[in-house]
């Protein structure tokens, strides 16, 4: 029996859109990969880049940032900050060669249960193919 790699993916979901969308996917019994560990934040703008960096260094194989579509933020402008922070993190990871594709940003609205199921499944497949994070077994950090 092969020990198949089961990724651990941290998802930061905003309460009003993404989390509700995820909940919709759940109640509609849509397929959601078990690798996604959801952390609910009130707004995607609450996602401190340090959360993402901490998750990656602790060994998360993937990190998903999710929020309301731009223009639809429950708090009007929070997700505009999220977008800039994602761009910043992506740039840092790319420049340092830290496998920037282990981090992603998705806009998932409260009615997009199907989208939530799709993007989590796709990301899980991608991460599974990539393999474990090189930080997962690294002690000397």
């Amino acid at each position, binding site marked *: 029996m092969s020990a198949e790699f089961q990724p651990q993916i941290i998802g930061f979901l905003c309460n009003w859109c993404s989390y509700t969308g995820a909940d919709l996917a759940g109640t509609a019994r849509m397929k959601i990969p078990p690798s996604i560990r959801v952390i609910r934040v009130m707004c995607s703008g609450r996602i401190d*880049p340090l959360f993402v960096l901490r998750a990656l*260094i602790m060994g998360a194989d993937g990190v998903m940032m999710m929020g309301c579509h731009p*223009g639809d933020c429950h708090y009007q402008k929070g997700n505009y900050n999220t*977008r800039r922070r994602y761009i910043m993190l*992506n740039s840092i990871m790319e420049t*340092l*060669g830290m496998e920037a594709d282990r981090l992603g940003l998705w806009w998932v609205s409260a009615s997009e249960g199907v989208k939530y199921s799709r993007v989590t499944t796709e990301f899980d497949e991608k991460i599974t193919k990539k393999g474990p994070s090189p930080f997962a*077994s690294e002690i000397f950090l």
Partner: protein
Amino acid sequence: MSETRRINKGIEEGVHDLLVHLLESGTVQGVFSLMKTNEEGGVDYSLITDVEHIQNAVPFQPLMPVNAGRALSLFTLDGPAPKPIAAVLRPCELRAFIELVKRAQGSLENFLLISLTCGGVYPLKSLARGTFGSDSAEYWSSVEKSEIPEGIRLTCRSCVDFVPLQADIVFAAVGAENIEKECLMLLPTENGRKIAGDLPGAQGGGKYDEGRTGDLKKKRLEEKDRLFKDFDANRKGQAEMIKTFTPCLGCHACGEVCPICSCLLCTFDSKTSDYNPENIDFDLNHKGGLKVPTGNLFYHLGRMSHMAVSCVGCGMCSDVCPVNIPVATVFTRVGDSLQKVFEYQPGLDVEQPVPSGTFKEDEFAQAGEQ
């Protein structure tokens, strides 16, 4: 910007006498400049109000004991300087100060800003070794010939932002003619033109040939490209990053001297970053081990996420690292990427908002659409 004034004195004498004149005439009531502290080349930034002390000013000594931008911020934190002050600082220090002003950590009011087209500074360790000071003539000769002086900071070798037109008076050191006998002052602002216009002994210097700095800029750009290519080839990747930062003691000296790192309580010195028993438990269970003390790589990545977009490339961080980690190389490399992505030029214009503190409703349309 082409108006200039010429003084018939060597650059070191010229800037020194300018400061003496400014203080003695009452044009300013204070002078902020490097001051001689011993005969071995040691200097410290000082704020002088008494003409008696100004004789020890060595404004363009190629040493940076502290980034002057940070120093100026320290006494304009709660409000503008109380009296007009002439401040002499290098281009990167001026850019750092402007970055701090954007963050409400200082005020530009009441300063007469004096700078130069910069030939670079020597590492602080050269002072500790007692080898500093013997290079003076060699240093100015290199600057005059648009060459990169041997032994200066790595960040200085690769700096292309060395023409500080944000200042009021800029001494044209790079590519100068006859730097031991005369010096040219560029006057980018109204205030600079007025003050230089009243300076006894100064004459019209004619139009400034901006090509004078072109040669050095080309050389520095080559150095920068080489440095960045070397980084991309040898320090990219998780394993390489860990190797780079393995010697890190977690002393945070780099953050302490960084002019942009101005938070009164740094996240990484606060309780948020403490490793308490519950945190240790996670690492022991999941990874089977923990480096003690931990959090060094996280500190650098976190600090990058906070300030790299504003990095002015002064090189203080690498200079003070006790274990010779090339912090400045990593941070300027990341800073360069971030500044390109956000089309941001740190310290160029006080009106340009810091990227992490602003946004546009329509931008980066490709983000979030995967």
